[in-house]
């Protein structure tokens, strides 16, 4: 037997299969999510003009800067190019009230990036949706600024009779549709009509109401969300089951209490539910990885949101329900797991 012959070795690349790749990258996906948010950003410019621009710019730039500083301090490669910090900043900005002070917005960015993301180890390691964590901290720390709403510059001052409309330099302070709904609820309970208390469905749909920068314009969010589903970045199950659960619960609740039939429709379109279900709850890092897990997660989101909105003292439930379900995600991943093809139940 001759000794073993070593193959001659020209310079070729060796690796284990597969040798081709789909070309999907994280930065490309992040850029597409940013692209999907463009309609919502444009809508916020249209409704809130300069105040939208300044808050969005402040949040996006500061988020990127904070991430770069953290990575520098942590001796890690600086990955501003992957757009994940920009996305976090933008999502945070879209969840803030239009007249929000710039300095506080930057502080929100700090919380979102540093406390929400980098402390856990950066992209992919965070437990909570960073943008919503930043918003929750701001809400706890500055409740007054976080709940001062202004009407869009396009809305007429007679639209809302709930709050005494006080003219400001560029905006009118108002209540959000969800606050109006609380008043409408009490009217419905005593058998009165409440339509004058509520913005019209059409205004609610197109976003001509008070609310956070990016959450009001439903068509813009739908376009972006459907784009993400089409591109495969978002699992349709999350927004579908989230919205469906909220609609069913508010529908039953309204039906039992004898509210107007538009009650669930208002809940679907008002507040942060649209942006939350398409852009926040579907965050890769903080949602379950299996399809069945995502359904459980989305139904949990819907139940929590409806509970907070209907029974809580605070009118908006999306942010907190997403943060709560983020905490449950590892548990869902552990117990709602796939059964292998042809295999029995997993231990």
């Amino acid at each position: 037997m001759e000794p073993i012959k070593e193959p001659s070795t020209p310079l070729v690349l060796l690796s284990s299969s597969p040798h081709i790749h789909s070309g999907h990258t994280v930065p490309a996906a992040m850029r597409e999510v940013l692209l999907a948010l463009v309609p919502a950003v444009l809508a916020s410019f249209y409704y809130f003009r300069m105040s939208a621009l300044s808050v969005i710019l402040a949040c996006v730039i500061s988020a990127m800067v904070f991430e770069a500083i953290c990575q520098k301090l942590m001796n890690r490669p600086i990955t501003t190019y992957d757009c994940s910090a920009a996305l976090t900043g933008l999502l945070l900005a879209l969840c803030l009230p239009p007249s929000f002070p710039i300095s506080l917005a930057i502080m929100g960015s700090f919380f979102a990036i540093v406390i929400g993301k980098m402390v856990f180890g950066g992209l992919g390691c965070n437990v909570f949706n960073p943008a919503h964590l930043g918003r929750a901290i701001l809400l706890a720390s500055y409740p007054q600024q976080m709940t001062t709403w202004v009407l869009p510059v396009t809305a007429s001052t007679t639209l809302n009779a709930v709050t005494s409309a006080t003219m400001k330099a560029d905006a009118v302070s108002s209540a959000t549709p969800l606050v109006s709904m609380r008043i409408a609820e009490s009217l419905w309970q005593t058998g009165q009509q409440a339509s004058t208390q509520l913005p019209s469905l059409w205004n609610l749909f197109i976003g001509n109401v008070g609310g956070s920068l990016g959450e009001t314009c439903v068509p813009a969010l739908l376009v972006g969300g459907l784009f993400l589903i089409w591109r495969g970045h978002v699992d349709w199950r999350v927004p579908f089951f989230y919205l469906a659960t909220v609609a069913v619960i508010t529908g039953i609740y309204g039906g039992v209490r004898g509210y107007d039939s538009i009650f669930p429709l208002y809940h679907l379109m008002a507040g942060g539910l649209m942006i939350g279900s398409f852009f926040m709850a579907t965050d890769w890092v903080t949602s379950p990885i299996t399809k069945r897990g995502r359904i459980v997660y989305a139904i949990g989101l819907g139940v929590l949101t409806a509970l907070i909105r209907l029974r809580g003292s605070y009118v908006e439930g999306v942010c907190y329900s997403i943060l709560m379900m983020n905490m449950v995600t590892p548990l869902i991943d552990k117990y709602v797991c796939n059964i292998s093809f042809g295999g029995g139940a997993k231990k």
Partner: protein
Amino acid sequence: MSSQKATFLDGIHIPPNKSLTDGLKITKCAAPDFVYLPLSMHIGAPAQPIVKLGDKVKMGQVIATAGGFVSSNIHASVSGLVTGFQKRYLPNGMTSNCIVIKNDGLDTLSEEIVPRNESEITPDLIRKQLQEKGIVGMGGATFPTHVKYAPPKDCPAIDTIILNGIECEPYVTSDHRVLLEYPSEIIQGLKYFMLASGAKKGIIAIEDNKPDAIALMSKLVENEPGIEVLTCVEKYPQGSEKQLVYASTGRTVPDRGLPAAVGVVVDNVATAVAAARAIKDNMPLIERVVTVSGNAVNNPGNYLVRLGTLYSDLVEKAAQGYKGDLARIISGGPMMGFAVNSLDFPIIKGSGSLLLFNYDSPFAHVPQEQTCVRCGHCVDACPMFLEPTVIVQAVKQRNWDSAASSSIHACIECGSCAFECPAHIPLVQYIRMGKQFIGGKGEGGCNPFYVIKK
């Protein structure tokens, strides 16, 4: 031909890139001066050589006999002189003893190779011929075919034979050409398989990216009772055994089970051709169709090559060399093939393709691994419904219990997860490594990616 296209659940879409060679007729590659026939070119025990140094052998003569039931005979693919025994690397990284035969250029056929009368063919003869003529699965797995037709007693009776003409690997077109150019032998082989197993139904499964092959085969099986052509959706890994059984029959092969457990046997179309020749003409398996493709090849094509031909001979004689500096040499398809470091490997019974890429190709780029962002694309892609990222987490932590309870053994290593991963995590590679560790009870071998810090 069924109007509904069959498929399995999950899986991925890969650009097929088959246009380089799918229109090119099978051409003969000239027999080389030396052939190197490994004794382990099949799954199972290595064959035992029965020739000595200096023996004169004829083409088709048995030179090594099966080393057990799950093993296979090896035949001389050229006539000439046994000039040596060498230990060589195979593309899969294993080593094997090879019998070296110097070609005398005469191709003197062994006397026993005479066509047989159709009337004397019986199921037992078919099994005997499959074993004696060295027929193994030519789709790549190289599992000895006669073993599939001698199923264990506790299995249900075989009622369906599926011929796999899917060829879901990008670039590879050898099975496509076999379908187009040896269709009658495929049907003949399928009939023999059905006779040997007692199956009443035969399915020829073809992916819908080969309409010409589907049309041809459908026409030919029109008057064949029990045989049908099944059009499958172009999706990876449609050609994987368990996925194909599900697509064709709706049956789920149990975990750790063979298709025989649900009454099905799957064979490659090239295997059917080889079997037909072995049974009818007494011709052993000594040559096969190999696709040579990739952007570096001067003359890509589908070549009929003698077993034991070195890749270098194939590239030189048939494909007329390559252009540029080679960045990648892939033995097999880009999804499951082996990247090798030279052309110094013999063609074995399972080699369906050889791909050469130079530095102009995206194959020359190996991206860096990043952190998992839990997007779940790997979970959505996995045709075995596993959770690759969870298994990989366990493998990285050397938590073999956790990896095992995540069904790491069920992975078919198709690579769909790693193909899809936006963070470029080599998921299937980690899983493969984890399997080896678990096979060796966590000892032996080395983990090149992960070092435990104490």
